[in-house]
C-alpha cells in the first residue's frame, strides 16, 4: 500500500498509479501522504519520544530540516507533538526515553508520529498483534476516531474477522495474494469466511 514491498507478480494500483513504476522522488512523495503504523512500531528506542514523533515529517522535509528538527526541535513542532500526545493521553511522556514506555504507550507514540506526518490516509499493520484482547476494540475505536477527526482514510490489516466486521465499513479479504472479496461487512456470509480461513493464513482488511 505504500510501496514497501514490490509486487512479485501482477500490479498494485493506487489512485490509478502503479507504485512500483514511480521514480524514487514520486514514491517518497506518495509515502509522505500515507501515515504508517508498523506492526513493530518502528520507533528508535534510545531517543526521547519527541524525536520519534517529529520524525513523522521526514518525507516532506529536506535533509537539513529533518536533522535540525531532531537535534534542535522548533517550538511549533514540539507544541504540535504535545497536542497530539495529549489527544492520545500520553503527553507527560514527550521527553521520556522511548524504550522506557510500555508497549501500549509506544504504540501510541507510533500513532502520534503518523498523525504528526499530516497524512491523507492512515495505514496500520496488525495493530492488534501487540494489544491485550480486552483493549483491541478500544484501540480500533481510537483509530477510527482519529481518522474521522483528521478526515483520513483508515486502512487496517487484521486477523480478527469479528472485530473487522463490527468496526469497519468495508472489508477486503486476501488469501495467498488473491482477492477473495471486497464488500460491505453485512454482505459477507459464512461462505466467504470459510474460503478465507481454509488453512493456511489470511488477511482481512477493511
Amino acid at each position, binding site marked *: 500500500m*505504500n510501496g*514497501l514491498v514490490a509486487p512479485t507478480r501482477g500490479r498494485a494500483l493506487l489512485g490509478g498509479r502503479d507504485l512500483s513504476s514511480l521514480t524514487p522522488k514520486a514514491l517518497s512523495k506518495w509515502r*509522505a501522504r500515507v501515515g504508517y503504523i508498523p506492526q513493530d512500531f518502528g520507533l528508535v528506542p*534510545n531517543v526521547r519520544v519527541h524525536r520519534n514523533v517529529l520524525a513523522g515529517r521526514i518525507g516532506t522535509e529536506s535533509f537539513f530540516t529533518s*536533522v535540525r528538527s*531532531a537535534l534542535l526541535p522548533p517550538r511549533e513542532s514540539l507544541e504540535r507533538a504535545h497536542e497530539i500526545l495529549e489527544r492520545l493521553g500520553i503527553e507527560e511522556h514527550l521527553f521520556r526515553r522511548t524504550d522506557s514506555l510500555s508497549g501500549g504507550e509506544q504504540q501510541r507514540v507510533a500513532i502520534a508520529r503518523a498523525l504528526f506526518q499530516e497524512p491523507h490516509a492512515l495505514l496500520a499493520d496488525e495493530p492488534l498483534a501487540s494489544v491485550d484482547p480486552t483493549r483491541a476494540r478500544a484501540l480500533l475505536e481510537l483509530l477510527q476516531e482519529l481518522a474521522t477527526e483528521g478526515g483520513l482514510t483508515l486502512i487496517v490489516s487484521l486477523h480478527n474477522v469479528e472485530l473487522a466486521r463490527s468496526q469497519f465499513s468495508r472489508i477486503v479479504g486476501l488469501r495467498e495474494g488473491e482477492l477473495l472479496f471486497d464488500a460491505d461487512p453485512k454482505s459477507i456470509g459464512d461462505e466467504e469466511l470459510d474460503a478465507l480461513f481454509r488453512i493456511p493464513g489470511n488477511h482481512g482488511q477493511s
Partner: protein
Amino acid sequence: MGSPDLRAPGSRGGWILAGTALAAGLALWALDLSPAGLIPSGGGRTLLKDFFIAGLSPLTSREPLSATDPGLMAELMQALKKTLVFAAASISLAIPLSLPLALFASDTWWELFGRPAPVLQGFVRATIAVLRSIHELLWAVLLLAAFGLSPATGVIALAIPFTGTLAKVFSELLDETPRSSASALSAIGGHPSQVFLLGLTPRALPDLTAYSFYRFECAVRSSAVLGFFGFPTLGYHMRASFDDLRFREVWTYLYALILLVLLLEGLSALLRRRFVA
C-alpha cells in the same frame, strides 16, 4: 514405524576444541619449542629476578642523572602527557577518516538506497583490510624511514591502522543494528540519507561510542610502545631506564601506564553509562 531417532545432532564444539589442540601441538613442534627453552640461563635468571624484585619497590624520585634532569616525577608526567596526546591526536584523525569508509563498506548503506552493493564496496573493504593488516609499529618503521622522527610521523603511524580497524568494526556495528525504525522512516518517504542518519545511526551510536573509547585505550598502549622508536612517550623512558638497568624506574613507568589504562577504562564506562542511560 520404529522408535523415533532421538539422538541430538553432534556438537561442533568438540571438533573445534580438538582442532585447536592439534594446531597448538603442530605449532610447538614447528617452532621446536621445549619447556627447557623457557628456563633462563644463569645470568638471565639473575636479571629476571632483579627485574621482578624491583617491581615491589618502584621509584618515586631519583638522584639527578645530569645537570638538566627534571626529576623522575616531572619526566613521568611529561611522558604520560605525550602518550595521551599522541593517542588522542591519532584517534581524532582516525575516527573522521573511518566513518565514510565504514559507510561505504557496510551492506546497510547500499541496501537503504535500494541498489546492489557496487564494486566500490569491495574496493573500500579491500582498502580497509590493507590499512589494518599492517601493524602500527610497522607503519612507524616505514614512516620513520621515509619522514624521520617527528610527532606527525608517530601520529600518522597510529592513525592508519586505527582508521582501518575502526572502519571495519563500525561497518559491522551498522550492519548489526536493527532496521525496524529505519524501514518505518523509509515507509513514510524519508530519503535514504535521512533514514540512515535519523533511523539507524541513533540506535548504533552507543555501540559506536563504546568501541571508539576502547580503541582510544588501545591507542594509548600503542602510543606508549611507540616510544621505543624514539618518540617522547612512556616507551622512550622505559627503554632508557631498562638499558641502564634502572629497573625500579621501569616499574614506575609500567605502573603509571597500567593506572592510566585503568583510569581511561573507568572513565569510558562512566561516560557510556551516562550516555546510554
